């Protein structure tokens, strides 16, 4: 089945059960949208034309390289005891960068815990972001500055926040789109199901972007769902379900772009499944040798999204040693900045524990504020003495 040239709009009102659009258009195509081969060969796709300048193409690559560098740095920081844990996005750079790049600056992102790449597209301070993993603070970036919500750890819950936010944008008459990321495992939770139900009915401008990295910690996709593909879930909510090669940054970008346009035009939500692979452990605490083989990893390495885009740029004569050096430079600089931001982080002030629980905290824990203050002074005294 091939996708229609323009996205169908969801049925708005079917008192008699009559369908306004052919529901089959909600189904994903047989194959994920794929524009660039591993060796960089580009395939035209009239439904997904490329609207990017040379500079933008290079920028996509740059963002992926920086993402990987910072990601690696975060793993190192964890090994050095600077982070408590870290969830790497290695292998998923194209899925994240390509999709986030398709948004406008007023659009919002509602991430899970693995979206470093999307955050870097939004210019979120990566050191700030990593404070969640360091445990300095529960979070350390202002969502309103980058239209990038706090990372959500409970699986799938952020899909509802994105949907509500998008409902708000629609009520407010603003052309703002919300995109939420979750994983293949996340599709099993009740919350994304409810989110897609709401989004379908309310025609909210929201995009459900699923990075199908094949695993939920140790659980492979086949044990997660019997669905033919995750994108086949969309029709059950009256949304188009689309798939893309998530290791192909151009395909990811193009499929997302189309969903963004559809949402902005008032036609409602889209579900996108990006086929990718988690090249690292689930988190630094995980031991993937218990559940996947070296052969599988080696095969996955061949699909590396960075190499693919570099090959593409090379073929297009957009890549040269100078660019490589400049990008490497920037990646290193960012990594160094992040490293410094983590190493130099001030120890949090324990008294802040009470500062943000309520805007009006009267009556909640005055005596506990005093208690902690006394404990800190006691400890200070003890230290002073000791």
């Amino acid at each position, binding site marked *: 089945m091939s996708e229609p040239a323009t996205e169908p709009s969801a049925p708005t009102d079917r008192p008699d059960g009559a369908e306004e659009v052919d529901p089959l258009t909600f189904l994903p195509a047989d194959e994920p949208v794929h524009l660039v081969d591993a060796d960089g060969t580009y395939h035209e796709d009239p439904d997904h034309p490329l609207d990017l300048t040379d500079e933008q193409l290079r920028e996509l690559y740059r963002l992926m390289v920086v993402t990987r560098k910072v990601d690696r740095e975060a793993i190192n920081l964890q090994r050095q005891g600077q982070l408590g844990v870290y969830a790497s996005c290695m292998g998923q750079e194209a899925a994240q960068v390509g999709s986030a790049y398709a948004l406008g600056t007023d659009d919002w992102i509602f991430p899970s815990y693995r979206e470093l790449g999307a955050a870097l597209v939004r210019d979120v301070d990566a050191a700030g972001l990593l404070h969640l993993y360091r445990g300095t603070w529960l979070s350390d970036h202002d969502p309103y500055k980058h239209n990038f919500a*706090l990372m959500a750890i409970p699986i799938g819950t952020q899909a*509802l926040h994105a949907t509500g936010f998008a*409902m708000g*944008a629609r*009520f407010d008459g603003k052309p703002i789109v919300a995109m939420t990321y979750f994983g293949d495992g996340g599709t099993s939770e009740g919350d994304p199901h409810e989110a897609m139900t709401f989004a379908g009915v309310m025609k909210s401008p929201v995009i459900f972007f699923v990075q199908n990295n094949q695993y939920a910690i140790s659980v492979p996709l086949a044990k997660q769902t019997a669905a033919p593909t995750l994108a086949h879930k969309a029709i059950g909510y009256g949304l188009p379900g689309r798939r893309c090669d998530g290791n192909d940054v151009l395909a990811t970008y193009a499929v997302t772009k189309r969903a963004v346009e559809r949402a902005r035009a008032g036609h409602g939500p889209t579900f996108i499944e990006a086929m990718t692979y988690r090249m690292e452990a689930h988190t630094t605490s995980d031991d993937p040798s218990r559940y996947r083989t070296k052969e599988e990893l080696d095969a996955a390495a061949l699909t590396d999204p960075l190499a693919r885009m570099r090959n593409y740029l090379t073929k297009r004569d957009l890549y040269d040693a100078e660019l490589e050096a400049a990008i490497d430079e920037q990646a290193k600089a960012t990594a160094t900045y992040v490293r410094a931001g983590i190493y130099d982080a001030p120890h949090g002030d324990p008294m802040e524990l009470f500062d*943000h*629980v309520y805007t*009006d905290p*009267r009556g909640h824990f005055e005596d506990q504020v005093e208690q902690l203050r006394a404990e800190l002074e006691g400890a200070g005294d003890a230290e002073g003495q000791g």
Partner: protein
Amino acid sequence: MAVTMAQAINQALKDAMSADDRVLMFGEDVGRLGGVFRVTDGLQEMFGEERCFDTPLAESGIIGTAIGLAMYGYRPIAEMQFDGFTYPAFEQIVSHLAKMPNRSRGTVKLPVTVRIPFGGGIGAVEHHSESPEAYWAHTAGLKVFTPGTPEDGYSMMRESIESDDPVIFLEPKRRYWMKSDQQLPVTTQPAREAVVRREGTDVSVFCYGPMVRTALEAADAAADEGWSLEIVDLRSLAPLDTASIVASVKRTGRAIVVHEAARNLGLGAEIAARIQEGAFYHLEAPVLRATGFDTPYPPAKLEEYWLPDVDRILDAVERSLAY
């Protein structure tokens, strides 16, 4: 003209929505039907389908989208149809509504009001008579309010909607038809202040929501026995007005806590703990509890035996006075 608790809350919703067009009201059957208790009656007609609307049947969805709407800048009021149907939304309430403002170090505010008709005594089937307040009150980040009078129904609802903190607003459903001659609008004390509904000298009785009227009836009956009860309506269950609670006990020397919820780890436990912490030398008797039993809420025909009533309160008073 008399106004019922349900009408007072309805009027508060209307007035708040008129005053601020960022206020939205949504949930199951709150639109055309006006809610199963008609508390949202007329709102959709007055404010349109974008400000008062029916959602799909999914409580986690209702709270989760309320959070997103609040992040956008709205002030959502979300209705949970019954106390027993808030549990599917527990994750969104406890992990996000309560915690996200703190998680964000103050950048995200969630001025969400969650309206929950709660409590028993109306002869309903299972899951329609629950008193889940202890779950919410134990959860840091939430405020928990419950009115005991129509006046408070109006005023505390306005206060909840205006609060920048999330509020769980528990509506004592068996008092929806309780009447008052009060003209609306009315502004009562801030919710965080407990109110002495009746002064007394022998025993302090702490109560809230549906039990306020029951406690006042008990005070009447107690007077016949020559016992003077001080009835304190807590109004806010989180935060608790510890100072007023302790002050009352310092006056009377005895305390009883009354609530429908099961006794074990109910509000009575916390109030007893605070009283003995704050008025240890004033206590003439242990703080006693007149509450529901530590069993699931019973079938309708047996609820009268389960729920605390005037007799159970008086029994506690008698036991307290016997010390």
